[in-house]
């Protein structure tokens, strides 16, 4: 469903993506692993059009993602950002229902609020949270609200950018389980970037490792554990010694 072919992207002459290619089948959950600065976030942003690749092709259902109606294209996506990226000035329910309060998916305000409360409930938050501002919530609650916002308009494709960063292990487990449940229940295609191996095991159908701007390895979670690829082994075991330089 999502096909990336030979993507290149440099910033101020420094290459970040150097020919990344990847195929994410419809309805599957792909997790991209890799160290900091290997281009994982840039890859996601290229798909969404937040960053324009220097070269290469991005296709969604066989269609060139850079052409056609941008609003209709983005309406197919939901995204959970690393820091949740909630809008500070809006109460929680308006963050969740943001898409339902304006644009082509606009619903009556009361209905949008009801949907927001339902989505909050789905991520384990009660209706009392709906009227609060994001700054009044803990990091874990903000992540849940971000997740509720990502699924509010029931998108076909959901991106998760480092969903467990900054959370304690218990809350990280809760978020991982929620992501897995929601993706399965919605039948959505999910693309997650993380360097948290517990997330990989909880969320992934398939895993791809990005290193040095390219997809170095791809396979199932079982294949990941069994692979002899020294890069994958070093990464999943968290060793300082190996082909991946510890100082990047």
């Amino acid at each position: 469903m999502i096909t990336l072919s030979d993507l290149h992207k440099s910033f101020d002459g420094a290459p970040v993506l150097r020919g990344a290619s990847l195929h994410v089948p419809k309805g599957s959950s792909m997790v991209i692993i890799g160290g900091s600065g290997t281009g994982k976030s840039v890859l996601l942003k290229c798909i969404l059009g937040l960053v324009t690749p220097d070269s290469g092709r991005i296709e969604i259902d066989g269609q060139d993602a850079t052409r056609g109606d941008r609003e209709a294209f983005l309406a197919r996506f939901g995204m959970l950002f690393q820091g949740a990226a909630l809008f500070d000035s809006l109460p929680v329910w308006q963050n969740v229902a943001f898409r339902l309060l304006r644009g082509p998916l606009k619903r009556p305000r009361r209905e949008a609020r009801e949907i927001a409360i339902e989505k909050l409930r789905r991520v384990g938050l009660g209706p009392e949270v709906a009227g609060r501002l994001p700054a009044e919530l803990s990091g874990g609650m903000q992540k849940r609200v971000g997740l509720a916002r990502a699924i509010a308009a029931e998108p076909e494709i959901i991106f998760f950018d480092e969903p467990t960063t900054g959370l304690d292990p218990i809350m990280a487990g809760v978020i991982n389980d929620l992501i897995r449940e929601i993706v399965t229940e919605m039948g959505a295609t999910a693309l997650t970037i993380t360097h948290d191996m517990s997330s990989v095991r909880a969320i992934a159908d398939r895993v791809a490792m990005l290193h040095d701007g390219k997809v170095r390895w791809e396979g199932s979670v079982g294949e990941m554990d069994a692979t002899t690829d020294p890069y994958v082994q070093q990464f999943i075991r968290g060793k300082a010694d190996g082909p991946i330089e510890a100082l990047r």
Partner: protein
Amino acid sequence: MSFGGALAAPLVAALGTLGRTVIRALAATGRVTLFALTAMSHIARPPLYPREFALALLNIGWLSLPVVGMTAIFTGGALALQIYSGGARFNAEAVVPQIVAIGMVRELGPVLVGLMIAARVTSSIAAEIATMKVTEQIDALVTLSTEPMKYLVAPRLLAALITVPLLVAVGDVIGIAGGYAVATSSLGFNPVGYLKNTLDFLEPLDVLSSLAKGCAFGGIAALMGCYYGMHSGRGAQGVGRATKSSVEAAAILILAANFLLTGVFFSA
């Protein structure tokens, strides 16, 4: 190396630096112009977000009233004292009402309100949008099918274009009132005569120029806040730099625009 060759190298280096600076300045002018045109085009095309627009009206207009009022009243009072004491050197103390009126309406009202708006509103817009950028809220807007120029920039720019001329009008009136209060309470002016002289002396062009300057200064203040916010660098340092640069640029552009507009209205 010959003496000429030794001189040529630093000269070429200096010319190179000058050339790079000019190119950078021209590129920045082009970027700001494109940004302004894009923002204007978003004002002209629906949808306009009413909630964002109402909030911007409140923040830029209503909440700026106290600072504009305080600035204007003290400036008007000080102006009356200055004109009275300066005018006394050539027996022209009686022109206080006229000079306060013309000084406030043509010049000090628009410029001081513009600078106060640059300090209060430009900085706040730049800091808010820059923070949204570094916390990925602007990327989030895009993924939620919302154009940031339309959602963040257009409402603020339109609100500034509408409210700053009104703030200038309020500032003009309060400044004249400040002069009136000082002149009638401590300089011995007759209250009725002061007001009559003020109203008789002001012309429609004075008021028109004041409002036109307010509109231009409001546009500059909002645009600079939005531009530097949207182009902020990373982290707290990026937000700080965007905020500082936006206020500097807005203040300089407001003073330059004031010079140009004064020439347009009163050069004949």
